[in-house]
């Protein structure tokens, strides 16, 4: 706070992000200068890790809850604050996992990778606190461009280039649709700010029965843009191909991180549109489609990353269905589902990262997991517990997220969706159970010998295991925080 310029209070909101931005520039320059060093990759990873830790510390210590800056261009409330802290901690775990996975692998050929990840994290941080369509679009595009590059990082493999290309083209089209929707809203009402959107919503609900078709279509297009990035059906066709083609570390990154932020953003946006039920009904359809495609699509998959893709579609369907109730419980359940889903995905990728065979190559096919119990029986058991959790078997972690979403649906008496969801839930549990069968008792007696996991990854896995097993003892901790977060959304500055 040594500068006292006219932007001081406005920039205070982004104190930590400013730090991250500047330090990333410095790290980029530093690594370009020393790019001929043998260990430049490890140094860059270490520097990015440190800078993220410092960003987290700065953010925690900045006094910026209930804040708005640049005349409501960006805001901060408890929701955004907690989400950003959770996101930063998750990103720290992911970066350490990616680093530890890459030590022996020579596919990661240049130092730009961690810097790009740093920029993606920065853009996601700014995205969640945006209060205006324009700010949202700009940060979304920044994040998307970085992820397009990261998806095609192994440029000499066909799969990677193809997935990057698909992601780029389809992502550009969806951003186009998003921008078109934003521009229609601006054209009809002159509004880009969310605070004004709330007032528009309120006055429309007072004076008119419902929106005019044009504004509904425009907001619908915005929602389509966001749902595309999340990977909901029927906009999910890119997800399996891109997840499969991208290198594993990038898949790990964009299976979780953008979903946390974009899902959080979706909840915030829908909160503002809560007076009109048409959007929630639309979301119901998308949610049910997502769960259907996610459950049935994954049944035939034999490759691990495609399985992850379809299970991601399934989980996103649950998140959307949680929001589609439109009640406080609905938002609560959706946000809890986001948290729990990201923890489960982190656990999943941590275990997949540790399973390297003797040539230090990670798994591509599911059948490689055969009889894991023979080569590493503790890891097999932890993996089985994680898979039971993702299938939604109590008393493990994943059950509570499903319970909350089903509860919010039953509270709003959406019985048809409830029963459909329950049936699809049991269908989708099959592919997790099939993995458990492969791990423990397949008829084929072969097994693949995996190397010993590294120490830090083992710590991460064991912490996540204890969360998985003992969540139900301390479930109140998460639920009270999420409760406060959703309550803070009611406050406008």
């Amino acid at each position, binding site marked *: 706070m040594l500068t006292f310029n006219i932007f001081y209070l406005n920039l205070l909101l982004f104190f930590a992000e400013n730090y991250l931005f500047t330090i990333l520039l410095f790290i980029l320059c530093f690594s370009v200068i020393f790019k001929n060093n043998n260990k430049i990759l490890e140094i860059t990873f270490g520097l990015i890790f440190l800078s993220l830790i410092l960003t987290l510390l700065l953010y925690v210590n900045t006094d910026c809850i209930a804040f708005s800056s640049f005349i409501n261009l960006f805001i901060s409330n408890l929701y955004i604050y907690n989400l950003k802290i959770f996101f930063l901690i998750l990103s720290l775990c992911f970066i350490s996992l990616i680093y530890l996975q890459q030590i022996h692998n020579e596919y990661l050929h240049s130092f730009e990778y961690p810097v790009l990840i740093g920029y993606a994290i920065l853009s996601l941080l700014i995205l969640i606190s945006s209060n205006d369509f324009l700010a949202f679009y700009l940060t979304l595009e920044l994040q998307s461009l970085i992820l397009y590059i990261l998806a095609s990082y192994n440029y000499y493999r066909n799969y990677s280039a193809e997935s990057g290309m698909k992601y780029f083209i389809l992502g550009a089209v969806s951003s186009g649709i998003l921008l078109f929707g934003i521009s229609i809203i601006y054209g009809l009402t002159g509004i880009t700010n969310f605070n004004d959107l709330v007032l528009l919503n309120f006055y429309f609900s007072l004076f008119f029965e419902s929106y005019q078709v044009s504004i509904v279509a425009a907001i619908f297009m915005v929602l389509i843009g966001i749902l595309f990035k999340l990977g909901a059906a029927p906009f999910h066709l890119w997800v399996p191909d891109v997840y499969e083609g991208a290198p594993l570390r990038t898949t790990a990154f964009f299976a979780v991180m953008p979903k946390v932020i974009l899902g959080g953003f979706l909840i915030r946006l829908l909160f503002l549109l809560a007076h009109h039920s048409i959007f929630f009904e639309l979301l119901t359809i998308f949610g049910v489609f997502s769960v259907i495609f996610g459950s049935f699509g994954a049944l035939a998959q034999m490759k691990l990353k495609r399985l992850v893709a379809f299970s991601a579609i399934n989980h996103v369907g649950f998140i959307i269905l949680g929001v589609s109730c439109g009640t406080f419980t609905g938002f609560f359940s959706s946000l809890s589902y986001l948290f729990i889903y990201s923890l489960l995905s982190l656990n999943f990728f941590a275990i997949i990262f540790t399973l390297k065979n003797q040539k230090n190559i990670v798994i591509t096919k599911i059948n490689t997991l055969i009889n894991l119990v023979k080569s590493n*029986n503790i890891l097999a058991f932890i993996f*089985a517990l994680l898979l*039971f959790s993702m299938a939604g*078997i*109590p*008393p493990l972690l994943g*059950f509570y997220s499903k*319970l909350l979403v*089903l*509860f919010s649906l*039953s*509270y709003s*008496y959406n*019985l048809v969706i*409830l*029963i459909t969801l*329950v*049936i699809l*839930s*049991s269908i989708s*549990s*099959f592919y997790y*159970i099939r993995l*458990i*069968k492969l791990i*423990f*008792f*397949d*008829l084929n007696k072969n097994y693949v010998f995996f190397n010993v996991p590294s120490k830090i990854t083992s710590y991460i896995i064991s912490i996540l295991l204890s969360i998985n097993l003992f969540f*139900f003892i301390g*479930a*109140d901790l998460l*639920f*009270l925080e999420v*409760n406060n977060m959703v309550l803070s959304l009611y406050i406008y500055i």
Partner: protein
Amino acid sequence: MILNLIVLNIIIILILLLIPNKFLKFIRLFSLISSFILFILSLSLWVFFNNNSTNFQFYTKFDWLDSFNLTFAFGLDGLSLFFLILSTFLIPLCILVSYYSVTYRLKEFLILLFCIELFLIIIFSILDLILFYIFFEAILIPMFLLIGVWGSRRERIYAAYQFFFYTLVGSLFMLVGVLILYSHVGTTDYLIILNSSFSEIRQIFLWLAFFASFAVKIPMLPFHIWLPQAHVEAPTAGSVILAGILLKLGGYGFLRFSIPMFPFASKFFIPLIFTMSLVAIVYASLTTIRQIDLKRIIAYSSVAHMNYITLGMFSFNLTGLEGAYFLMLSHGLVSSALFLGIGCVYDRYKTRIIRYYGGLAQIMPLFAFVFLFLTFSNISFPLTSGFVGEILIIVGVFEINKFAAIIASIGTVFGAVYSIWVYNRIFFNGPLSKYIQKYSDMNRREFYIFLPLIILIIYFGVYPNIIFESIHLTFINMLNYF
């Protein structure tokens, strides 16, 4: 007191997890002794049980999730007391039977058995609907692994899948019912739900949701297909747990949840339950007659016995209800004993197909005597505990619908047919079968497995009042809802 059991069980699991695999003898002895300690602790629950009160005894409660109004409430009444004791009674027998016959990863097997015991203790004593559901489904995890990993042949994968998915789909429908009930009442505390009333259509819907889960567990007729598969492919200890306790979870669910909470719907669906039960009794008994696999015979006879139980439960008079309860306990003992007997035979000769056996009584006279006694208990012969249960059920059903009682007794006759025929084919069928090369009668360990079971079957058959005096008040209370 119940918390003591649970915490001790968790400590046993933790200690077992930490002992390295090379101390196998110590692991076996430790798990056997600790399961005995758990059994004696649960017997002490019976000692301190007050027969003259209708309250839930040993009631403890502490808050779990304040934001959702959910509490952990434990309590026992006559209904759950004996199931708790039965579950802690069967686990030492399971450990004894797998003492030397499980060679692959015995430590993990024992850990899974103790996990099952932990979940069973919690299920039978918990008085909160969502927590009941959580632990009801949580049993799927260890049972799935038990059937899949320690089963004996190829079909175990198919059996494990069937068991898992039948139970999962049924339980998920129950989850829908639980959630709607929670939105209606605002809490899932059992004692509060007992005092709230539901409209008739809502009762019907909720009863059907709960029925989906309990009908799969019992199992009632169209949903029984998992049972022969799971019983046959499971290891001996797994079959004992399945037949002895897990089937009773369905009956316990009906008695604890469906009937007190939804009395109108329970009366409304009496014709449905009666039809399904009668068809199941006759059909299962007839199917058993043509089976050639020993375990499958006992599995189908379990289906028949459990459907006797639902027949008695839904007759809604004191005789029927108490008969159903007593038959559940007796079936827990008899069915487990039969599976243990088949386990003995399987350990020696590694086949369960009846055609390979014949004249076994000549080389295993002691075992032949024990198995004959168990066969008679399976038929519900007088002086065994099964007789008490079945006679009470038939008398109870007779008051409601004479035709149903007649068909039920025909089912008993079929039961006698297959049981005696199986016994004849295995033990008495002329000279010793040429496939049997080695002669060894029951050893001391197996004798001590059967001894408590036989003593209890005779004891409960001759003096059943020792159980009845604790449960009279519970069932009289239950009948007050009608």
